[in-house]
């Protein structure tokens, strides 16, 4: 086990290095002038000044020198200040949001995290439940119903589903509006009396004992969470169903049934623990997928998280900003995959051998 963990951890720096290299290569598509947004706030119009900037930050130097500077930053020869350097947390300056990218990320991330965290429990629990129902009733009516539910969900583009939800539950009734908070609630949250502990509105509202704001925030989250959940249910239930079917065909299940155990015990205690193994891998992917897959959902529901900022930046060709988001998500993805792999090896000893 220790051996496996070490082998797996050794890969991490290499993967992270690879991620940075690929992103840096994508940056090379930009002209040196555009790349100067990595180091300066305003890109000047004057050509002479521009040339000075390109010289000053070494944007005309060999590519490996530039890569190194991009990683650790460079010293501004005029002021002696250290600027840039993604490892220092300086991701450049966002043209579309008119602020440093790192600040934008820090400000927007809690909203996305809040939505993803709210969605993750219903997604995984609901998906597993449906998958098990399908497998247990194999080839009966319920199974077909679950399969159709899954395949339709799998075919529904998230933005179409989101728009249809909005049409059904917002237009006309006004029950579940888009956005993050109503105007009045937003004013309360912005006011100095309201303490921002986590920047996740639902949590903060509870900590501030403001039930009305909590409910308002929840009301805005219902539809995005449902649309996220439906699409991921489709995937989770497919994996659960097929893996449960496989497990239920094993000899030890027949043995358990032959012993006269009730079907409930056979399924819950004998089949489920093994049948859910592949779902663990998927669950890890789900958390990451929810974090990075919110781009479209946030845009549809006008929800101010990192996804919407990224979509906005991408449609305005603000590459510096989007690349920073890719970098951020890529790092999360690499780390999360390692955690999932190790967890998986822990619960399924067969994996460690390979």
């Amino acid at each position, binding site marked *: 086990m220790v051996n496996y963990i070490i082998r797996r951890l050794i890969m991490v720096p290499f993967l992270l290095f690879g991620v940075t290299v690929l992103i840096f290569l994508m940056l090379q598509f930009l002209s040196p002038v555009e790349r100067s947004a990595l180091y300066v706030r305003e890109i000047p119009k004057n050509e002479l000044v521009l040339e000075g900037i390109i010289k000053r930050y070494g944007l005309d130097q060999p590519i490996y020198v530039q890569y190194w500077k991009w990683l650790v930053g460079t010293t501004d020869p005029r002021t002696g200040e250290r600027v840039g350097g993604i490892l220092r947390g300086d991701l450049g300056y966002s043209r579309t949001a008119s602020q440093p990218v790192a600040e934008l990320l820090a400000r927007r991330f809690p909203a996305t995290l809040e939505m993803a965290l709210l969605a993750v429990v219903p997604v995984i629990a609901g998906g597993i439940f449906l998958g098990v129902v399908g497998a247990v009733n194999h080839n009966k009516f319920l199974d077909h119903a679950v399969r159709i539910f899954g395949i339709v969900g799998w075919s*529904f583009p998230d933005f179409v589903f989101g728009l249809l939800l909005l*049409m059904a539950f917002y237009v006309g009734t006004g029950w579940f509006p888009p956005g993050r908070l109503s105007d009045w609630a937003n004013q309360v949250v912005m006011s100095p009396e309201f303490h921002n502990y986590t920047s996740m509105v639902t949590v903060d509202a509870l900590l501030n004992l403001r039930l009305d704001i909590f409910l308002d925030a929840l009301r805005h989250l219902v539809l995005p969470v449902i649309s996220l959940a439906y699409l991921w249910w489709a995937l989770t239930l497919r994996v659960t169903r097929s893996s449960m079917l496989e497990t239920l065909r094993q000899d030890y299940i027949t043995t358990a049934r032959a012993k006269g155990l009730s079907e409930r015990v056979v399924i819950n205690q004998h089949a489920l623990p093994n049948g859910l193994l592949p779902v663990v891998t998927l669950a890890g992917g789900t958390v990451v997928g929810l974090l990075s897959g919110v781009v479209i959902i946030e845009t549809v529901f006008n929800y101010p998280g990192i996804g919407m900022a990224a979509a906005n930046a991408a449609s305005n060709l603000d590459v510096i900003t989007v690349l920073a*988001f890719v970098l951020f998500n890529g790092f999360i993805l690499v780390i999360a995959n390692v955690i999932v792999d190790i967890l998986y090896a822990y619960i399924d000893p067969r994996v460690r051998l390979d």
Partner: protein
Amino acid sequence: MTTQEVALPQLRRRAPGWFERWVGHDVYRTLKGLITNPISVIGLVLLAFFIFVAAAAPILAPYPPGTSPSRIPRDGFGAVPKPPGTEWKTRQPPLPFWWKAVTGKDKWVHLMGTASGQWDIYYGVVWGTRTALLAGLIITACGFIIGCVIGAVSAFYGGWVDMVLMRITDLFQAFPFLLTAMTLSAVLTPKLGKGLLPPAIALIMFSWMGFARLLRSDILSLREREYVLAARVIGVQDTRIMFRHILPNAIFPTLVLASMRIGSYAITFAGLSFLGIGAEVGYPDWGQLLSFARNWMTQLGDYWYIVVFPGVALVLFVLSWNLVGDALRDVLDPRLQGSR
């Protein structure tokens, strides 16, 4: 020396018909599985419908001669969408020949209404079928080819080549798909101009990993089989073993995966144009049409047709591929055969 005729027991229930002999037993079995499974029949019918619409687009929604179908015709420039059935006022495109026979009227109307900017939704939906079909097929085909080359090379050479190629595959998988595709197309747009090419290239760049992994693992398991060993023993060349003995058998699961991916790449492609990345405003593309709805969020009750027509088209399109792919997987996966 005389040989004695031995009556072999009849192994086959019937002799193969001309069609089965022509396409081969495996393909015949697959096709038969597809047309006897009700789920895949629904999928195939839907698919046939979309292919028909894409092929017949110039008849269903004709363009004035001399104009290119890369822009949806628009009826003026007003911001407020118009409901289905509104009469076409300005710059009316030519009437299709079937129009008068079917409806008895001689005025072209907006069959599915107009979006803001007076883009005709019917034209967008009809010609968008071409875009969706092309995008799904081309992206999947390119990803499939790249993936197959990398997977086959990796499995064939093994050793450090395999190691390096698989680590590169890992690396590409370490990227969040949609976000990276968005970025790459944003990066490519100034070089290639706004259009379908940047998002297509971006999606292809990050679509080959699944194919590569699947093909590699299938080749690796086939390589150990007796018939390959037998071929090697009688001295068949390596490349011949690879292309004649292993690849034709190993490629099927990858092909199934490809058929199941077409729909999801069409979704992603439409998603990118929904976000305003890729096709220029006015290009007939379902995602583009749906993005018009974003400006009318609070009045979608009145302007339902902006969402419903392109939305339903997109859902059915993806559904048709997924149904066919799902059935194909069931037919081709021998492990599932006993359980159905």
